[in-house]
């Protein structure tokens, strides 16, 4: 019987950077599903915002402070501006929806991209809160901020990371 390998006396820090196990058959973990549900919630919130903008469009424009640059101050011009807002918002939401699909399928680039956007958004909110004293309450941005943070927590968890990297060989 060969002599067993002796245990090393210390653990090099590089062991923390070892990729997770190669495991293509890994079942989808709860954390990944939770992350996808949170992205879908974010999309839903975006749809609600777009609908409320469209519903209150005339009231929004009747505010004397609001100026539509590059559009005629006619009803047709206003309508065109509304379509532009909805098209832009809708595109962003569709991209978000596609990302949710790719995260669910376990693509690592989609997971990293979603986390990156969340980090940017959280950092912006934190700066505004810390440096400019912007209040974060249930009536303002508390809910959207918590969705972003919970999303980041879920997708950065070890099980979600291992799932997204299940096809990587060491």
């Amino acid at each position: 019987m060969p002599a067993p390998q002796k245990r090393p006396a210390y653990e090099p820090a590089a062991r923390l950077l070892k990729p997770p196990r190669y495991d293509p058959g890994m079942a989808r973990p709860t954390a990944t599903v939770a992350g996808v549900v949170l992205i879908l919630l974010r999309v839903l919130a975006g749809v609600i915002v777009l609908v409320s903008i469209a519903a209150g469009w005339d009231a929004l424009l009747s505010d004397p402070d609001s100026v539509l640059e590059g559009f005629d101050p006619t009803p047709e011009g206003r309508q065109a501006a509304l379509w532009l807002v909805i098209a832009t918002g809708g595109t962003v939401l569709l991209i978000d929806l596609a990302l949710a699909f790719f995260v669910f399928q376990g693509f690592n680039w989609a997971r990293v991209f979603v986390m990156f956007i969340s980090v940017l958004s959280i950092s912006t909110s934190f700066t505004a809160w810390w440096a400019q004293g912007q209040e974060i309450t249930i009536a303002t941005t508390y809910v959207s901020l918590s969705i972003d943070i919970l999303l980041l927590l879920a997708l950065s968890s070890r099980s979600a990371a291992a799932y997204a990297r299940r096809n990587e060989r060491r």
Partner: protein
Amino acid sequence: MNRRRRGYSIGVAIDWFFFVFAGLAALWLAYLSLTETFHVGWWGIPFFLVFWVLLAYLVLPRLHRILTTIYVPDYFIGRTRTSDGLLGDPVNLAFHGTGEQIRTALEAAGWTKAEPVTLGSSWRIITSTLARRSYDEAPVSPLFLFGRQQDFAYQQEVDGNPAQRHHVRFWRCPDDWLLPGGRRVGWLAAGTFDTSVGLSLFTLQVTHRIDADTDVERDHIVKTVTDADPRVAVDVIADFATGYHARNGGGDSIRTDGDLPIVDVRAVEVPTQTAGEVTA
């Protein structure tokens, strides 16, 4: 694919950045929830619940995971680790034999195999604990040894009350792995007795509290197995554990005389109908 042959990866370093950032962000969110608690009147009660859930199930586990990665050694120190990396129940039993022989010996001694943790089984353990209904295959929480979750776990319910139970988790030792001191064993196990349901001291999660005297449970396991089958032999390494008193991951104190019984079930015959199962 030469690039993948390195022992480390840049992607994993980026993952660590997100992991730590998310922990800090969650801490901030918990703070915001707590301050909001005082601004919304009676709505503060559900908000406080949200704060507790955030703290106990997301923030503290993440912080513990980051800190224990730094300060808890990953080699064998006679203790299991919880999924947050905290020190868990002490390793207080060793076994010789195949997984099937161990399962046969335990089942003959009146032990029931624990179900895996799923949404369904977790829900059932909550409802049966609240209703004090019996659930003798209740799942046990995962504990880690050799960087792996237990291979299987067995339990005995006490008086049909799911809050109290005997339970023991098993890990197969890596090949050519020796105990400190040089003995070779096939399996290690950690047995403790759940006394009640309470809050964990370190994560504030709802969990089982364990009986401090882990030797009683260890000796109960050895006695039931040896009583059920006379072919089971037991050898003891006296004073194996140096941690005569400590705390487990839930903050329960534990004390032991430090002995490690080595239970030899190699003479146990596995019934033929289960012989086709895979050996874990």
